[in-house]
């Protein structure tokens, strides 16, 4: 491979995957690990029927294409931000070549960005080929040609017209007046983690809806719901880790400001409660027909405690991402065991208290290595 391509892959593709490792890990978990053998249906059968569903159901196909387009926009946003970054100024040297070779390199970068969805789409096309669904195959091919070539064209435009680099920022910046710390955190999500946020919210809300909404049989077995729901809620770990990393690099000054510990904790508490609004709306919608008021409250308290816990442990030590994911997995196993013993409300209370303890004990003693 030429040195130019090596540089591009090292400075654009690798950082992209590193930055979004959490999102991919969560998606893989949802798409692979979370799909257990239920009712005689295994992983392969599940994905085969999912692909057939994508191809035959027009609204579903549109939904999937919209999700893939969002992903492509995320790639574009990453590219725009990276090209703006002073540390990547050296890339301008790489792009001094003739326009066509540069376009080719950018196309390669875009294809590497799109690799995860391209792989899935390739399998979907293969399923469509088996069934001779030619219009669907054509649609998918055109869609991917458009986002691949369109993306490469957009990147070239960003390189040739640096003044346009801000335009590519998806949806612009979130405009909420920042007077309180929790607003900074919300704006961090709005500016950097919109897609991750939407993915997590879809996972949690669809899990709640899928398991609790059962018009035929009334109320569901809550132990099973808790198990699957906790798995989806733990997906917030990826988001929380990214926000804490951002805080350490951009909000370090806040620790030196005269704000009481209680107030600091309340800001985190309020922020995580706001993050849970979609889940609260879903639960409220299902109450009281499919879930009782007490259980609804417990679900919300459980989610909140988990989020606070995931945030607070990062003040004990800023764990490496992999170590943090191991802790999150460990917490899931604990929840699994607690779920079987029937002391779930006590566990939620302990989780909340432990989060507070961690925060108050370690906040000022914490230093990012």
């Amino acid at each position, binding site marked *: 491979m030429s040195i130019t391509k090596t540089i591009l892959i090292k400075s654009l593709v690798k950082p992209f995957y590193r930055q979004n490792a959490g999102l991919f890990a969560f998606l893989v978990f949802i798409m692979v690990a979370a799909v257990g053998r239920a009712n005689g249906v295994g992983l392969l059968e599940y994905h085969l029927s999912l692909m057939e569903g994508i191809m035959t159901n027009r609204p579903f196909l549109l939904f999937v294409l919209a999700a893939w387009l969002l992903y492509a926009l995320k790639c574009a946003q990453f590219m725009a931000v990276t090209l703006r970054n002073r540390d990547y100024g050296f890339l301008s040297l790489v792009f001094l070549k003739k326009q066509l070779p540069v376009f080719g390199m950018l196309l390669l970068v875009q294809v590497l960005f799109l690799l995860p969805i391209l792989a899935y789409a390739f399998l979907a096309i293969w399923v469509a080929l088996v069934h001779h669904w030619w219009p669907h195959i054509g649609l998918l091919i055109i869609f991917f040609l458009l986002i691949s070539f369109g993306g490469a064209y957009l990147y070239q435009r960003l390189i040739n017209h640096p003044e346009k680099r801000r335009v590519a920022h998806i949806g612009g910046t979130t405009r909420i007046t920042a007077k309180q710390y929790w607003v*900074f955190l919300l704006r961090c999500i709005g500016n950097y983690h919109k897609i991750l946020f939407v993915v997590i919210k879809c996972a949690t809300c669809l899990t709640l809806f899928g398991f609790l909404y059962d018009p035929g049989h009334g109320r569901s077995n809550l132990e099973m719901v808790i198990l699957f729901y906790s798995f989806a809620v733990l997906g917030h770990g990826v988001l929380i880790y990214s926000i804490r990393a951002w805080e350490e*690099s951009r*909000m370090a000054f806040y620790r030196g400001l005269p704000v009481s510990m209680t107030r600091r904790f309340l800001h985190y508490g309020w922020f995580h409660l706001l993050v849970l609004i979609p889940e609260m709306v879903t639960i409220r919608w299902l109450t009281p027909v499919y879930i009782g008021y007490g259980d609804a409250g417990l679900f919300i308290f459980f989610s909140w405690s988990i989020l606070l816990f995931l945030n607070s442990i990062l003040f004990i030590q800023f764990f490496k991402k992999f170590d943090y994911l191991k802790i999150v997995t460990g917490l899931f196993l604990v929840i699994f065991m607690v779920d079987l013993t029937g002391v779930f409300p006590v566990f939620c209370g302990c989780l909340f208290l432990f989060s507070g303890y961690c925060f108050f004990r370690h906040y000022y003693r914490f230093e990012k290595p």
Partner: protein
Amino acid sequence: MLRLLNVKKEYGERVILSVPDLMLTGGIYWLQGANGSGKTTLLKMIAGLIPFSGDIDLNGMNQHRNPLEYRRLVSSAEAEPAYPVFLTGRELIRFYQEIRIATTEQADRLIDQLGFGQFLSTPIGTYSSGMIKRLSLLLAFIGRAKLILLDEPLATLDGEVAILLPDLMRDYQRSFDTSFIFSSHSSLPGSEKIPIKELLVHDQSIHLNV
């Protein structure tokens, strides 16, 4: 004013700073030392940004026992400040103003003095490093802190603003009885107007040059 007692900072096995007992009275201190001697670490410790063992007291307030009261007394500007790029300078100034319970008049005066007016409404992501430095100095001067810590205040700062610093320090010293500790590899331009004491970081310790 400021007392460091049995203060120790280590990274792993390596001792960065070890200060058995140091008492500083009010005034303006110029912190000097070679690269990597621990100047920034010391300023961050005093600012309450990083943990350490031992005690740091400011006007009788202990940083560990009275974290809130201590932080009300101290303010700081980092050598390489970093802020959320999507915020505007105005938002950050208002945020500081609210936390430090500072008047709009004070903030406006500082904006005017440091020539920050035209950049207020633009996102910090569009600022040059010099502008970010100006903003960090402006934020450090918001409120009525009794001790302001300035880490390399001259780095990336243009001469026009650098020359204002001694006057600003003197104003704050007179008006609010504020003391300063600043680190720099060169003296402040126009610093002959103000009495400056020298502090030297050497061999993991701090020495006061009288």
